[in-house]
């Protein structure tokens, strides 16, 4: 019963939280550039407007793939917030990512094809760290289940500082922010146009946006796990992590995929794997 409630709460509340997070993001970004910025509810206005637009599609499959992307992101979050297996969550998230890439490959436009290829490269970059994070959490808490990890009484962050740093590093990739906004290009009118989302108009773009909100809330849930011993610490920690991401977004230009892949694997190796080895020797 409690599980069902968690799932329903996730499906209903997450898009509102995600949209508000995006609104706050846009205001803080504007303030950092000494602008006033849009109203807080702007992301909701955007999505509601997009649903009123004509849906122009190049082929019959492309919108279907994006609906699959949304469905799998929701399934991933449902697994996570109902306290399911964290490994299954990570692989379900990868499936969602693959659907996004398939959708971007299908219209055959050069911009969206480059975006799709870069999306796959990004997945190669962040997947190792997500799995290392799951392994680290298992070694400390002796459980693969999010329910037990969240219920662990000691702060996970103290045991896994390296893993947490590595996770913050890939969070930038996952949130599609500079310097790693390789596949969708956070701001348009650049060499990539809008990358993977270039060929999506109207309602299907709205679906992508909503899926992205869900994804952001899910990732904040991952950050929460590192501080889950006490929610009074955890919620400010999540907000600070998001603020750091916005700050990085505004201070760095986009990097190449070579650098993204290399640096994220090096960070995974140096911070993540070393941390895991130390845990293996120190925590019995």
């Amino acid at each position, binding site marked *: 019963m409690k599980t069902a409630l968690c799932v329903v709460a996730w499906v209903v509340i997450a898009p509102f939280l995600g949209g508000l997070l995006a609104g706050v993001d846009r205001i803080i970004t504007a303030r950092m550039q000494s602008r006033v910025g849009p109203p807080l509810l702007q992301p909701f206005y955007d999505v509601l*407007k997009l649903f009123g637009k004509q849906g122009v599609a190049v082929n019959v499959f492309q919108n279907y793939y994006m609906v699959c992307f949304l469905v799998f992101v929701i399934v991933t979050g449902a697994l996570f917030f109902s306290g399911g297996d964290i490994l299954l969550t990570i692989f379900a998230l990868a499936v969602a990512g693959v659907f996004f890439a398939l959708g971007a490959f299908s219209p055959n436009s050069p911009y969206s094809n480059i975006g799709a290829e870069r999306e796959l490269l990004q997945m190669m970059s962040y997947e190792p760290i997500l799995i290392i994070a799951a392994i680290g959490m298992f070694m400390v808490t002796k459980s693969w289940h999010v329910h037990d990890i969240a219920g662990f009484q000691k702060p996970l962050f103290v045991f896994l500082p390296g893993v947490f740093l590595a996770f913050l590093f890939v969070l930038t990739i996952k949130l599609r922010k500079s310097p790693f906004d390789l596949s969708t290009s956070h701001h348009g009118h650049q060499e990539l146009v809008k990358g993977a989302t270039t060929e999506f108009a109207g309602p299907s773009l709205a679906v992508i946006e909503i899926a992205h909100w869900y994804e952001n809330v899910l990732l904040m849930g991952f950050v929460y796990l590192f501080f889950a011993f006490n929610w009074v610490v955890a919620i400010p920690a999540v907000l600070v992590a998001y603020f750091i991401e916005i700050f990085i977004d505004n201070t760095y230009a986009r990097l190449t995929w070579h650098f993204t892949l290399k640096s994220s694997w090096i960070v995974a190796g140096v911070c993540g794997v070393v941390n895991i080895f130390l845990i293996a020797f120190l925590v019995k």
Partner: protein
Amino acid sequence: MSFFKKSPWVIHYDGSSCNGCDIEVLACLTPLYDIERFGIINTGNPKHADVFLITGTINEQNLEVVRNIYNQMPDPKVVAAIGICATSGGIFRECYNVKGGVDTAIPVDIYIPGCAVRPEAIIDGVVAALGVLEKKAAALKTMKASA
């Protein structure tokens, strides 16, 4: 309730002009004018855009480009011709390669004259264009309902 007024996304194309109006359009995005206050985003992608801002004249070379961008924009959409060159051809009107204003290529909804246009005039014009956008959205809705 329609949300077109609250989130108009623009695409900007510069035909053959002196780039004066072009720069003024981009000036609207800067901290001084900050059009993102009204939810306006410069998308750079016709498939995401609601408002098409064109500066400069239409000539034989960019005619097809302008038509292509216009045709790729999903309905409802509005076109704003910015600057005297875009509205009528301006001082380039008699040039051998110039066709004239933007309305020689695609239907224009709002004309914003000036040489160069001031950012205030551009913002005023875009706001006027939003009224047209709203009407077109309502028309599209009734068309869908009757179909």
